[in-house]
Each structure stands twice: as structure tokens, then as C-alpha cells.
């Protein structure tokens, strides 16, 4: 490698999220950022990762990123394609998913997720798409990793609506409610990586991306964000990670007619 490669904040977020996925893990993937990171992992350090999409493909190996959760290339490259009720019943609820990999519109300090409404439920200021498969994934996957861009609008003190549960009000709340999975183990943003504190389960910054100051993270968080005793610096993306990600995104743009995914 020759020096530090230049990269965007979005690229380091994707790379940092991809690194959390172990080779061989069975990963239930949401569309968008999680899907990009999961496929980057598959194309770099985790060739045997099993990607499950809620539309039914198990073991999908899409040559370009799917634009929707049910793109044909997911079915064509999967080990098998099952029906949607089966995906949720046998595979997710059946305890066969190691990592639920999700995005979110808003989260709170215990990584609870809102994808339903901003404002009042009956008269919302903004109506969001809703739950999708996230409530079941957040309950049943062995672990959950969240990927989303950080801003004070997205990282809020109090959610208007809890669509899918993280660590509820913290501590051992998940165990008390009998939720089978461990819940969120990491939140990856364009600024940092957060992990729940072992005892309180409150999100704590454990890694800052290179060049990011603590104040930036604090400013982009709607509550008083805590930092771990030792905060690591996220290793910069390697040239292989960057080239693979850029290639994937280039191929994707070509395949989808240069559509920009908002």
C-alpha cells in the first residue's frame, strides 16, 4: 500500500460495518446500507457468509447490489429461494440467523428503532415506511448490527415510536421480556462505532473513524453520548476494501441504469 487512501465518510461507514461480519455467519440483511456492507464483507474477508433477504433468497450472492429487497439477481444466485412466511417462520424464528443487519430512521440511546412515524401516530408529521421485517429480526436474530448515518435528528433522546426493540430501557430488559436474541451489539455510523455498555446497555462510542473529533459525535447525537474508557481509532479502509466497494458500486450503477438510490 502506498500511503493513506482517500475515502468518503460513507465508505468508511460501510467498511467498518462489513468488518463486523464474520466469515460463515448467517446474516439477515436489510436493503440499502446493510446490504452494501454485507456484500462487501462477502467479496472481501467473508466469502462464505450466508446472506438471507426477507423476500426469500437464502445464500444470495448478487453480482450487483439489489435496488429492492426482491431483485431477480438475489433469486438467481441464492442456494435456495423459499416463501416469505417460511423465511420468517423456519429460518429467523427458528433461530438460524446469527446477525440481523439493519438500517433505521431513528434510534435512541438503547438502540431501540423507529421506522414508523415522526410525530403523533394518528396525525404524523412524517409517515415512514413502517416495520417491514425488523420487529421479528430485532427479536429473534442472535445479534443485531445497525448501520445508519449519524445526526441529531436520527439519534434522538426519545423515539416517537418504538417499532423494533433494541435494549428497551437498558440493563437486562430483553431477558426480562424473554426476547430470544441478544439485541444490538453495535451501531456503525459515518462518524464512529458504538457498542452497548455491558451492564447498562447504553450506547457508548468505542471507535472513532480517523479524523473525527469527539465533539462532532456529541453534536450529532440527541442525548449526551458517552465514550468508552479507551476509544480506538477505526483502521482506515485498506486499498482492497476500497477498490472492492467502488467496483461493486460502479457495477451496480451500470446495471441499474445509473439510478441514484436516495
Amino acid at each position, binding site marked *: 500500500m502506498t500511503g493513506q487512501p482517500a475515502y468518503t465518510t460513507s465508505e468508511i461507514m460501510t467498511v467498518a460495518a462489513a468488518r463486523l461480519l464474520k466469515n460463515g455467519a448467517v446474516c439477515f440483511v436489510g*436493503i440499502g446500507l446493510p446490504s452494501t456492507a454485507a456484500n462487501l464483507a462477502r467479496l472481501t474477508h467473508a466469502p462464505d457468509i450466508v446472506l438471507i433477504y*426477507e*423476500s*426469500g*433468497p437464502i445464500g444470495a450472492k448478487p453480482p450487483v447490489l439489489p*435496488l*429492492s*429487497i*426482491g*431483485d*431477480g439477481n*438475489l*433469486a438467481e444466485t441464492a442456494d435456495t*429461494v*423459499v*416463501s*416469505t*412466511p417460511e423465511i*420468517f*417462520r423456519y429460518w*429467523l*424464528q427458528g433461530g438460524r440467523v446469527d446477525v440481523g443487519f439493519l438500517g433505521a430512521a431513528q434510534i435512541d440511546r438503547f438502540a*431501540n428503532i423507529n421506522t*414508523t412515524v415522526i410525530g403523533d*401516530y394518528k*396525525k*404524523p*408529521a*412524517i*409517515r415512514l*415506511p*413502517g*416495520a*417491514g*421485517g*425488523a*420487529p*421479528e429480526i430485532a*427479536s*429473534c436474530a442472535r445479534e443485531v448490527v445497525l448501520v445508519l448515518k449519524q445526526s441529531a435528528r436520527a439519534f434522538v433522546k426519545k423515539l416517537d*415510536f*418504538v*417499532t*423494533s*426493540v433494541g435494549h*428497551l430501557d437498558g440493563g437486562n*430488559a430483553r431477558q426480562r*421480556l*424473554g*426476547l*430470544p436474541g441478544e439485541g444490538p451489539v453495535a451501531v456503525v455510523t459515518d462518524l464512529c462505532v458504538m457498542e452497548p455498555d455491558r451492564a447498562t446497555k447504553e450506547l457508548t462510542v468505542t471507535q472513532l473513524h480517523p479524523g473525527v473529533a469527539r465533539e462532532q459525535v456529541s453534536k450529532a447525537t440527541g442525548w449526551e453520548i458517552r465514550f468508552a474508557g479507551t476509544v480506538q481509532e477505526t483502521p482506515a479502509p485498506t486499498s482492497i476494501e476500497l477498490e472492492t466497494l467502488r467496483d461493486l458500486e460502479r457495477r451496480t450503477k451500470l446495471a*441499474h*441504469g445509473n*439510478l441514484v*438510490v*436516495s
Partner: protein
Amino acid sequence: MAEITSLREAVATLVRDGDTVAMEGFTHLIPFAAGHEVIRQGRKNLTLVRMTPDVIYDQLIGAGCAKKLIFSWGGNPGVGSLHRLRDAVEHDWPAPLDIQEHGHGDLSNAYVAGAAKLPFAVIRAYAGSDLPKHNDKIKFIQCPFTGETLAAVPAIEPDVTVIHAQKADRKGNVLLWGILGVQKEAVLAAKKAIVTVEEIVDDLSAWPNACILPGWTLSAVCSVPGGAFPSYAHGYYDRDNRFYQAWDAISRERDSFQPWIKAHILNTDNFEGFRRVLAESTPAGVPQ
């Protein structure tokens, strides 16, 4: 027993005002042509069920066909919001829309319960979620064997389910493949079912475990080539991502939506007419 008939006839005889109608297809095989025909024939007060109400339900809601929506994710996949759905929920336009909101695991298994003629589906979910507070159809029950608390949701049993598939034979047996979503369950849960297909062939040449809906489980089978456009039909044509992108601008304002729906759907005779008008109004023409 399936009658092989025109889509116009099928909708006219099988879909009534006030019905509960499920149009399914998980990104793949979305029954756009049938949805358009429901709009064209001016059906009203429908309770629409669909896991992923996307552009087709945005069109139905904006056109004033719906009084209630039962769903688990409402968006324009890969693009953003559904503006007509949001306008109905946020501003009661063109009419107030009741919503009954679920998660995918829940709603897909509510169809399974409907197909099995069981009163409800059981899932392990919703502990701690706000969804049950706003949807009184989600209840918690105790397992009589282990004592575990589980969520229960009532079976979905539509008056009519509408799907699109790849092929039918001349007896009305239907074959579909690729991403299957919840179509088989939605058909078997319904009192009546309409299936549009890419083509009607002499022999389905299906392998033993293929997803087949026997003709005797269906009410009508209609040949509508391209009938899933702008979604895709595996083995026939790709998704037209440009249309989904274009829909964002068309649907954003009432003033842009209304002339579009009039010109493309209300003032056309059928799906072929829609494709023709769309090709004329789209400089690049209609792909595929």
C-alpha cells in the same frame, strides 16, 4: 374452477365495492395490470391488504379506491416515500385512510393462518414494541404448554386475492417461480382469486415440487403479457427501475398525480392502452 377470461371481465364480476382485496407480489410479479383495472372500473371503499404496498397501492389509494390499508411496509423500494399513501395518512386526501399496521413475519403468517382456515397466527415478536398499542389486532397469548408469552394476529381472509404469475395451462393451472413472496398463501386464504399470467401454454412442463396453484383453487385466469410491469417477471422481463424513480415526481403532488392517472389509466381501455400512452409520454419509450 378457474375461468380463462379477460381481465376486464374478471374484475367486473369478482371485485365488489367494499371488498377486502389482497394484491400480492414481493417486488417480483406485482399485479399492476389488475390494479389498474380496479382503478379503471372505479371500485370504492376497498380494504386493501398487502405486505409491501408500493407503487400499485399508491395508485389505488391516490385514485380513491381504498378506505383501509392493512400492511407491513409502505414505500417505493429503492426510491423513497409513497407520496399518495402519505397524503392520505397525513392529510386525509383524497379520503381518510384507516391503517392497520403489522410486521412482515406477522402478516405473512396471518396469510398462512388464512390458508389453513385457522383463526390466528402465532409469532414470537412485539415484546416491547409500540405496534400492539396502535393495532388492536395484535394480541399477546400464553402458550398452553410452556407458558411463554407469544403474539397472535388474526388470519387474513381476503374476499379476493389478485396475483400475477408466469404461466398457466389451458385448464387454468398456474405456475410461478423465482421470488414467491406470499402469493400461494394469499390465494389459498381468499374466497376468490384472480391470476394474471404472462402466457397461457399447452403444457406447464413443471418439475414435481414447483409452485403450482391448481386451476380449481382459482376463480379467473387472465392472459396479460407484461402485466407485472414496471415490476418484473422472472424469465420474461426485468424491473423497470426508471419507472419507480419517475413515480416519485409523478406522485409527489396532487396536481401531477391526477392528470397522470386520468391519461394513463382512467382514459385507457386496458393495460395495452396504458403501455401505449406511457410510451408516448416517456421520451425514452417503455423499456422491454
